[in-house]
C-alpha cells in the first residue's frame, strides 16, 4: 500500500484546496501520472501519483482544504487486495474543512463591520473584557483581529493596532458619493493576489534599487553562436532572458547571501538557486521557476523556459513550477520599457529587472566612441538582507559575467 500525501507545494502557505481527483477508486494509475488537481495561491497545479497501482481510497474530498503533508489517499500496489487497503482508510481519516484559510478583504469599509461587531462576543474568540469593550466602541470585528498577546488573548493594544490598520485602508472607490461614473469590474484571482503580495512586499521589506547599464554585445554573440545547436537540441532558441538566468545563477553562486530570505531577525540562506522568470499571462503576472539554475547549461535553461512558457499558455503547471524560487528576473524589454524599479517577490531578497535593448553611444577605452546594444538593469534589494555595498558588489559581478560570458566557464 502506498500513502498519497499532499506534498508541501510552497513554503509561503501551509495548505491547499483539493479541487479534482483525476482518477476514481478502482482505477489504475502509474507513478508520475497526474492524479489530483490542487488549487493554491495563484494557480491550479497537478500532483502526480507517488506510485503505480490501483487507487484504493480517496481521503480528501474535492473542494476541501488540506494541510500540506496530510494523508489524502491510499494506493493499492500489485498483488494487494484493493478493498482491504480501502478499509484501512477509515481509521486514518482526518476531517478536512471546506472553508478557505484566509482572504482578508482589506477594502471592506468600517461601517459594514459595525453591524457584525455585536457578534464579536461569540464563543471561540479569546479577548480581554477591555478588548471586547474597545472593539464594540470602535466597531472592530474581533474575529478579524489577528494579533494577540503571548497568552493567546486579544488585548486592548491588539484591537487598537487592528483599528489603525483598517483605518489606513481607503474605502472602496465606488463608495465615494461624487465623481466620474464607471462600472465595477471583476479582477482575476491572480491579479488580486499579486496586488496583495506586492503591497505586503513593499510594506514589510525596506526596498532600494541599484541601476546599471549592461553592454550585451558579448552576451548576444554567445547567444548567436549557441542558437543553432540549442535549437536543434531542444526546439527553441535561447532568449536574452534565458542568458540572464544563466548569468544570474553564476553570480548567485558567488554571492550566496543574495540567494536568501529575511526570516524574523535571521537570514535564511538557500542552498538551491531557483530563479523565477516573470511572465505575463491573460490572468495576470506569474513567476514560473527554473530550478537549480546555477547547475544548468544554457541549453537546459532554454528547454526549461520553453516548457514553462508552454505550460503557462496551456494553464498546465506542475506543483513545483510555481514554487521554490529564491530569486526573480523580470524582463520588460519586450514591452518597450527602458527600465523598471520592480517590487521584490516575497520572501526573496532581491529581484533583477531588465529593460529594452537600446543601441547607445558608449565611450570605451582610449576614448573611442562605439554604438553598443545596452540593456538597463535594475536590482531591487531588501535592505534587511543586503546593504548598498553588498548589493552593489553583486550587481557589479553580475554585469562583469554578462559582459564577459567566458567567466561562466569558471
Amino acid at each position: 500500500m502506498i500513502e498519497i500525501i499532499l506534498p508541501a507545494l510552497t513554503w509561503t502557505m501551509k495548505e491547499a484546496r483539493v479541487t479534482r481527483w483525476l482518477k476514481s477508486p478502482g482505477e489504475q494509475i502509474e507513478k508520475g501520472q497526474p492524479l489530483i488537481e490542487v488549487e493554491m495561491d495563484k494557480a491550479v497545479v497537478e500532483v502526480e501519483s507517488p506510485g503505480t497501482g490501483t487507487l484504493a481510497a480517496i481521503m480528501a474530498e474535492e473542494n476541501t482544504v488540506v494541510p500540506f503533508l496530510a494523508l489524502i489517499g491510499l494506493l493499492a500496489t500489485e498483488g494487494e487486495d484493493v478493498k482491504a487497503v480501502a478499509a484501512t482508510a477509515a481509521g486514518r481519516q482526518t476531517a478536512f474543512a471546506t472553508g478557505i484559510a484566509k482572504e482578508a478583504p482589506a477594502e471592506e469599509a468600517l461601517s459594514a463591520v459595525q453591524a457584525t461587531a455585536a457578534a464579536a462576543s461569540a464563543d471561540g474568540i479569546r479577548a480581554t473584557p477591555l478588548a471586547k469593550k474597545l472593539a464594540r466602541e470602535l466597531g472592530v470585528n474581533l474575529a478579524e483581529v489577528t494579533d494577540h498577546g503571548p497568552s493567546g488573548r486579544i488585548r486592548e493594544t491588539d484591537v487598537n493596532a487592528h483599528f489603525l490598520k483598517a483605518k489606513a485602508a481607503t474605502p472602496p472607490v465606488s463608495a465615494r458619493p461624487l465623481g466620474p461614473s464607471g462600472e465595477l469590474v471583476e479582477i482575476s484571482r491572480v491579479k488580486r493576489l499579486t496586488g496583495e503580495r506586492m503591497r505586503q512586499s513593499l510594506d514589510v521589506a525596506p526596498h532600494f534599487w541599484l541601476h546599471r547599464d549592461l553592454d550585451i554585445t558579448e552576451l548576444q554573440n554567445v547567444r548567436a553562436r549557441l542558437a543553432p545547436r540549442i535549437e536543434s537540441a531542444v526546439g527553441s532558441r535561447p532568449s536574452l532572458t534565458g542568458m540572464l538566468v544563466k548569468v544570474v545563477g553564476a553570480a548567485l553562486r558567488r554571492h550566496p547571501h543574495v540567494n536568501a530570505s529575511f526570516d524574523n531577525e535571521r537570514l535564511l540562506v538557500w542552498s538551491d538557486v531557483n530563479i523565477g522568470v516573470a511572465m505575463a499571462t491573460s490572468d495576470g503576472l506569474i513567476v514560473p521557476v527554473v530550478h537549480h539554475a546555477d547547475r544548468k547549461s544554457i541549453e537546459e535553461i532554454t528547454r526549461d523556459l520553453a516548457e514553462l512558457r508552454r505550460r503557462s499558455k496551456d494553464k498546465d503547471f506542475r506543483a513545483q513550477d510555481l514554487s521554490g524560487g529564491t530569486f526573480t528576473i523580470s524582463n520588460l524589454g519586450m514591452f518597450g520599457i527602458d527600465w523598471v524599479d520592480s517590487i521584490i517577490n516575497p520572501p526573496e531578497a532581491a529581484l533583477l529587472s531588465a529593460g529594452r535593448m537600446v543601441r547607445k553611444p558608449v565611450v570605451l577605452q582610449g576614448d573611442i566612441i562605439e554604438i553598443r546594444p545596452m540593456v538597463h538593469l535594475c536590482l531591487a534589494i531588501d535592505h534587511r538582507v543586503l546593504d548598498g555595498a553588498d548589493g552593489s558588489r553583486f550587481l557589479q559581478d553580475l554585469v562583469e559575467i554578462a559582459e564577459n560570458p567566458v567567466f561562466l566557464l569558471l
Partner: protein
Amino acid sequence: MPEMTYVEALREALAEEMRRDDSVIVYGEDVKLGYAFGITRGLVDEFGEERSFDSPMSEAAIVASAVGASLGGLRPVVEIQFSDFLTLSMDALVNQAAKVHFMSGGQLKAPIVVRAPFGAVGVFRGGPQHSQSFESWFMHVPGLKVVTPSTPADAKGLLKTAIRDDNPVVFCEYKSLYGSRGQVPEGEHLVPFGKAAIRRQGTDAMIVATAPMMPKALAAAETIAKDGGWEVLVLDLRTLAPLDKDCLLTCVKQTHRVLIAEEDCKTAGVGSELAAIIAEEAIEYLDAPIVRVAGLDAPIGATAALEEFVVPDEKRIVGGVRSLFT
C-alpha cells in the same frame, strides 16, 4: 517632621489618646514590660497601673473582658501577643463585640481596639503558630472594622482613629514593619478609615498590596519601571473594613491591569474579596485576568528557607506584573 519607627509611632498614639481621654485603658499579656515588641513599654510609668496593666494569659478573657469594660463605658485597647492567638478570642470578637450594637437595637456599643502583630518576619522566625495573617476572617464579620497600617505615619494616625471609633476594631500590626522608619506629622495626626492611599502613580498596571507587602510592591514597581519601562501604580488600602472601593475601582479603570499582593494564604484570603469586587464592578476595564501574588497555602516554617518559600517576595510580584501584559 520627626522621623520614628512604626513601634514608636504606635506608642505615641497610645500615649496621646490616653492623655486626651481618661477612659482609654491599655492591657494584655506583659503590657507593662512591653514584652515581645515593646509598643506598650513605659505607659504604666505615665498613666499608672489602673490604666496600663498585665492580664492573665488568656486571650479569651482579654477580649471578653474588654467587651464588658466597653459596655461599662471604658475604651479598652487590648493587646494580643501574636495574631495567631486571636483564635482564642474569636467568640468574644465575633459573637459579642461585633453583635452587641445590633442585638441591643443600637443601645449598646463596644468601642474596643484589639491590637496584634500579624505576619511573618525575617528576623523573628516565629514558625507556624506565630506568623499567620488572617485579616480576611475579620473582614468577613459585619460589625468589625479591620485596620492595616503600612507606615509609621499611618500606624499612629489610624490607631488614634481606631481608639476614637465607637466600633470594635481589629488593629493589624505587622512584625515585618515594626522596625521600619518614616516621617510622622506633628500635632494631632488622624488618618480616617476607608480612605486608601496611592503610594506610587502609574497608568500601565496596578499593584494593590496589603500592608506587609507594601515595601516589596514599591520595590517591584521600581524594578519594572527600570526594566520594562512600565509605570505601575501602587495602592495602599490602609483599612480593609471599611474598604475604599471607589479608590480601588478608579485605579483599576485607570490602569486596566491588576495585581494583588498579599502575605496571607491565597485561598479565601484578602485578595479573593478584592478580585471579586473588581470582577463584579469593573470587569470591562480589565485587559488581563487579575493576578494574585499571595502566600502559599501552607504553614510558615520556622527556618529562613521555609519562610522565604511561602511568603511572596519582590521577584514574584515582578513576575506577576509581567504576566499582566501577556
